[in-house]
C-alpha cells in the first residue's frame, strides 16, 4: 500500500468528489436565480422607435414652438402612455431642430423666452438657467451641459422624433 502512486487516500478522494459534486449542485441551484436577477442588465432596450409627434415640417418656422406628444411605454407588465415634449424650430439652413425641454441642471422644464429679461434664450425658472437658441447652455448659469437633441426623421413632410441625445458641456 505504501508505493508512490498511492498519493490520494480514500478519505481525500471522498472529500474531493463530495465537494465537487456539492459544488456543482450548489452552482446549478444558483444559476437560474442569478440569471433572473441580472436580466434587466443584459436585455437590450427596445427603445429608439420614432414616433409621429403630430406636426408637419411646414408648420415649423424659425421661432421655437413647444410640441407635446405621447409615447407608448412598456414597463415590464405595465403599459402606459407618458407624454413627451420638445421645442422645435428651423435653423438658418432650414433644418428642423428638436430640443428636449429638460434642464440639464436639475431637470426642470425650460421654455423659449420664458423670462422677459432674457429674449432669444431658453429660460429655466427654477434657478435662472439659460440656453441659447441652439440649446447650448450659457456659461455662468447653473446648467453645465446643452439641452439634449431629439433624434429625428422626416417622413412625407411629417416630423418623427426618437430619443433625446445628451450633448457634451460647453
Amino acid at each position: 500500500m505504501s508505493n508512490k502512486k498511492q498519493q490520494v487516500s480514500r478519505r481525500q478522494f471522498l472529500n474531493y468528489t463530495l465537494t465537487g459534486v456539492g459544488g456543482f449542485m450548489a452552482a446549478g441551484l444558483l444559476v437560474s436565480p442569478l440569471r433572473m436577477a441580472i436580466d434587466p442588465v443584459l436585455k437590450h432596450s427596445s427603445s429608439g422607435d420614432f414616433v409621429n409627434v403630430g406636426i408637419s415640417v411646414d408648420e415649423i418656422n424659425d421661432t421655437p414652438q413647444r410640441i407635446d406628444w405621447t409615447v407608448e411605454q412598456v414597463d415590464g407588465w405595465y403599459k402606459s402612455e407618458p407624454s413627451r415634449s420638445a421645442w422645435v424650430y428651423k435653423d438658418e439652413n432650414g433644418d428642423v431642430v428638436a430640443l428636449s425641454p429638460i434642464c440639464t441642471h436639475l431637470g426642470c422644464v425650460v421654455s423659449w423666452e420664458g423670462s422677459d429679461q432674457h429674449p432669444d434664450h431658453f429660460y429655466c425658472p427654477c434657478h435662472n438657467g439659460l440656453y441659447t437658441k441652439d440649446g447650448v447652455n450659457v456659461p455662468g448659469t447653473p446648467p453645465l451641459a446643452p439641452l439634449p437633441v431629439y433624434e429625428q426623421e422626416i417622413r412625407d413632410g411629417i416630423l418623427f422624433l426618437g430619443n433625446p441625445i445628451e450633448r457634451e458641456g460647453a
Partner: protein
Amino acid sequence: MLQKVYDWIDERIDITPIWRDIADHEVPEHVNPAHHFSAFVYCFGGLTFFVTVIQILSGMFLTMYYVPDIENAWKSVYYLQTEVAHAQIVRGMHHWGASVVIVMLLLHTLRVFFQGAYKKPRELNWIVGVLIFFVMLGLGFTGYLLPWDNKAYFATQVGLEIAGQVPFIGEQLRILLAGDATIVGAQTLTRFFAIHVFFLPAALFGLLAVHFILIRRQGISGPL
C-alpha cells in the same frame, strides 16, 4: 406549571446549557451604568439592536397591508394610514425607527472609535460592524421608495443616478437596481421591495450573528 413544562423539556433535550451559553455571562463593572453612570455609552450597541427588532416586527406587520405595485403601493399605504386601526402607529414606528436606528448606530460607532475598542484583537468585528452599517443604509434607501409618493420616487431617481456614477460598472449597477434601463417604475418597485424585505434582512441577520458571537468570544474591551 411553567417550571414543570421547562423541566419536562429539559429532561429530554437538556436545554439548560444552551440557555446558559446565551444568557448567563458576567457584565464587567466598567460597562455597567449602575456602577459608573458614564458607562451608558456602552448601551448604544444594544439600543441599535433593540430598534432593529422593532423595525423587523413593525415591518412584518406592515406587509400585511402593503402592496409593491405601482398602481396600489401608495393607495395601500394611504389605506393603512387612514382606515386601519393603529396602523398609523405601526407605520410611525417603522418610519421613525428607521432614522433612530441610524442615529444609534452612529453613536455606537463613535463610542467604539473614541475608546479605541476596534483595536487588536477586535479589528474583524469592526469590519463586520461597518458592513452592518452599509446594510442599514441599503435598508433605508430601498425602504424609502416603497410608499411610492413623489418624494420617494425622486429620491430614488437621485439615488440611482449616484449609483450610475460608480466607475466602470456604474451603468450596469444602476440598471441592476432599477430593473430597467430607462424607467424607474414597476420593476424598480418590486426589486426594491424584495431587497428591502428579503435580501438585506437576510444579510443583516447573518452579520448580526457574527457580530454578537465575536463579542461573546472576545469579550467587551477593557476599561480606559
